[in-house]
């Protein structure tokens, strides 16, 4: 059966209905139908994980673990599946960031793997990308999350507020602070 991945571009209510129909199929034993949900939401969730961790490999790992967790707890979904699975991925990213920062706490500043990428990944990136990843890694996770959701994922403030369960005003402030901090970190190199 062809995979329907159009739901993420539909209005939320239509999208939620489509998702619920798939969830019902999975819960009834059609395990492969879960692939429809993965196809629908893996791209925006991958962008989130990649923006938060700065690593393609880590992003894929977090996403894979998150979808497996989602599959095993699918019967607990209340409300929108996309918001529910987003929270699983977002929490996975924050946990990873906490662990990596704790791991590198004793390192000298210059030794810190700011982008956390592998050497091969780093070689594949342009200079601005490397600098941006390093600057993003220096931000508190709440500012980084807001910047990534707004500028990398291209979400509206209203959508961000719904996913993060906060206000539009608070998110505008976080994005503003993130931009200020990023400019301060990068200005010397790009003035």
């Amino acid at each position, binding site marked *: 059966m062809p*995979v329907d991945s159009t739901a993420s571009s539909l209005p939320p209510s239509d999208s939620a209905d489509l998702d619920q129909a798939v969830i019902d199929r999975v819960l009834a034993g059609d*395990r*492969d139908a*879960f*692939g429809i949900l*993965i*196809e629908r939401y*893996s*791209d925006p*969730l*991958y*962008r989130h994980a*990649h*923006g938060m961790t700065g690593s*393609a490999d880590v992003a*894929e790992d977090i*996403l*894979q673990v998150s*979808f*497996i967790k989602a*599959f*095993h707890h699918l019967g607990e979904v209340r409300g929108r599946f996309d918001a529910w699975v987003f929270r699983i991925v977002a929490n996975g990213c924050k946990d990873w960031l906490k662990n990596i920062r704790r791991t590198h706490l004793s390192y000298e500043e210059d030794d810190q793997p700011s982008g956390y990428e592998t050497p091969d990944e780093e070689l594949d990136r*342009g200079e*601005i*990308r490397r600098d*941006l990843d390093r600057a993003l890694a220096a931000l508190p996770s709440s500012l980084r999350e807001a910047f990534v959701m707004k*500028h*990398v*994922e*291209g979400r509206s403030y209203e959508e961000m507020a719904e996913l993060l369960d906060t206000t539009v005003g608070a998110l505008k402030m976080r994005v*503003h602070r993130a*931009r*200020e901090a*990023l*400019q301060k970190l*990068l*200005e010397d190199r*790009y*003035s």
Partner: protein
Amino acid sequence: MMMHSESLEPRDPAVAPEAVRQAPAAEVDDREVVPPFVENVALWSAIDAETARMRAMTAPTGFAARVLAGLDRR
């Protein structure tokens, strides 16, 4: 000669004039207005171009199949 009994109070300007003079200055510093953020146009043009490229990223090919295969291993 002690002028009156309150002259030893630390808040008395006659005893602690330096502290009294400094306090308002410190308060002014706390209220200092932060200059408005002026965006560096050239920098943000470069960052915006990069974030636009990042916005086009997609999950790796075959990702859904790998997750489904992972369900079998658990």
